[in-house]
């Protein structure tokens, strides 16, 4: 048995652009909110915890690994720690900054 880390998204061949990050974040918040709506129907200004979205696992393993898989990037463990964000676009901004920082 040998360690094959080829599946690990540590060195993105092409960093995702903002549109791709927005799509991934929308899919994520819809899934985390246990909704069945079209992710594209979620606006950037939608509150993460409001009448529609209920995102209550921010920072846990599932969200990080889902984002990493969707965007083919490695995100820092503490991406969400101590940050203040209230809307979908706030979350996308944070992920965008992390992706750009990893370049």
């Amino acid at each position, binding site marked *: *048995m*040998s*360690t*094959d*880390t080829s*599946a*690990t998204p*540590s060195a993105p061949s092409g960093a995702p652009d903002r549109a791709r990050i927005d799509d991934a974040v929308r899919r*994520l918040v819809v*899934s*985390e*909110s*246990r*909704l*069945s*709506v079209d992710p594209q129907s979620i606006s950037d200004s939608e509150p993460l915890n409001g009448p*529609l979205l*209920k995102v*209550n*696992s*921010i*920072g*846990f*393993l*599932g*969200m*990080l*690994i*889902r984002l*990493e*898989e969707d965007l083919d990037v490695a995100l820092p*463990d*503490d991406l969400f*720690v*101590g*940050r203040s964000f209230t809307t979908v676009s706030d979350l996308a901004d944070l992920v965008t900054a992390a992706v750009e920082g990893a370049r």
Partner: protein
Amino acid sequence: MIEEAARTARAACAQAPPMGDPAYRNYCRSLGDQLTAQWPQIRKANEQDVAAAEERGMPPTLVDRLRLTDAHLDLLTRLADEVHDALPEATGPSAETPIGDWGSRRRIAKPLGVVLMVYEARPTATVEGALLCLATGNAVLLRGGKEISATNAELGLAVRRAAERAGLPGGLATVLDDPDRSQLRWLLSHPDAVDVLIPRGSPSLIDYCRTATSIPVIASGGGINHVFVHSSADLSLAVDITLNSKLSEPTACNALELALVERRVADEFTARLRTAARRHEGPVTLRTDPSLVPAPDSADAPDAPDTGFREEPLAEHDFGREVLEPSLGVLVVDDLDAAVAHVRRYGSAHTEGIVAEDPSAVATYTAAVDAAALIVNGSLRLHDGPTMGLGPELSISTGRLHVSGPVALDSLVTRQWVVSANGTLRH
């Protein structure tokens, strides 16, 4: 090194005694003893995790998921006793069945192998996984979140000691303490190292585990659950069932999200539901179909204490939604076929219910609706291993293969045939 952990788990499987060995029941007792003996250290480690989470700005609701209290010790030791008691029946051989005039057959339980449990936040999952998986002869790799790493390290010590003192290989249980996600990816890409994957946690985690690996997954798809109130229903019972199915534990995976009410009885049912919901102690929100007769002004309601009752219009985005709050919807449907169509489109095949006095409606509905458990004239919250008499459970599976419903002890083994042939040859 993750491959070393995987190799150790596989070797422990091979070294473990056969199913039915007294060591497995001894392990249950031993684990209860170890948890009790080590509880001060476990609590201390947990306080470190909780303090670190608070320092990092984790919201209080999430911090609560990390916290262990003495009540958890009671729950876990009781669970160990229950597994001890349930083990012989769950893992024992079947009766011998004659085959023609030449032999007989019986089925015996064997472990699934190496189980990888991936979970977030709740440290009780570490003990539940180590208890049920080891008691059934499996090796288990426990990959919790890094936010409970100190707690898991202590729990891992208690589990290992319990296993060794019971005569089981300590390597049957390994707490993976490296939070590096590339290690999890490595395990998921090695079906030769892991036989079964059991994720517990957020929708993202379940979704990732279902799509990122070829390893068989036992997982709950979340509970987007409905109760269909047929026109033949006892409406008082239907109201009780509806409220109990949600308000007894709003965040449970077997909780109700939406009552589908046949149009002929919808207004009467909803009026009774409003009255009962107003009497409920604690907050409750009804999201009602706008086509229903509106509620009278709450100030005019004869028996409406100020208990936090709210009513809002049901919206289309409420369909197929799991709301982890004391809030439930009411949707009017034309008939049984429309209810079935709604459940097929929006349900998660977890728990579905019907309230009806008409046996043909019950038969038609239960045949047409796909769910791990179909509850007839009862609370959806009855879908639970211990409550259904199936013994302790690890989770509730919404999968179709191997196990559907409570993942009880007998779901953590496979069954193999033993054929006693008495010298018979195939002609």
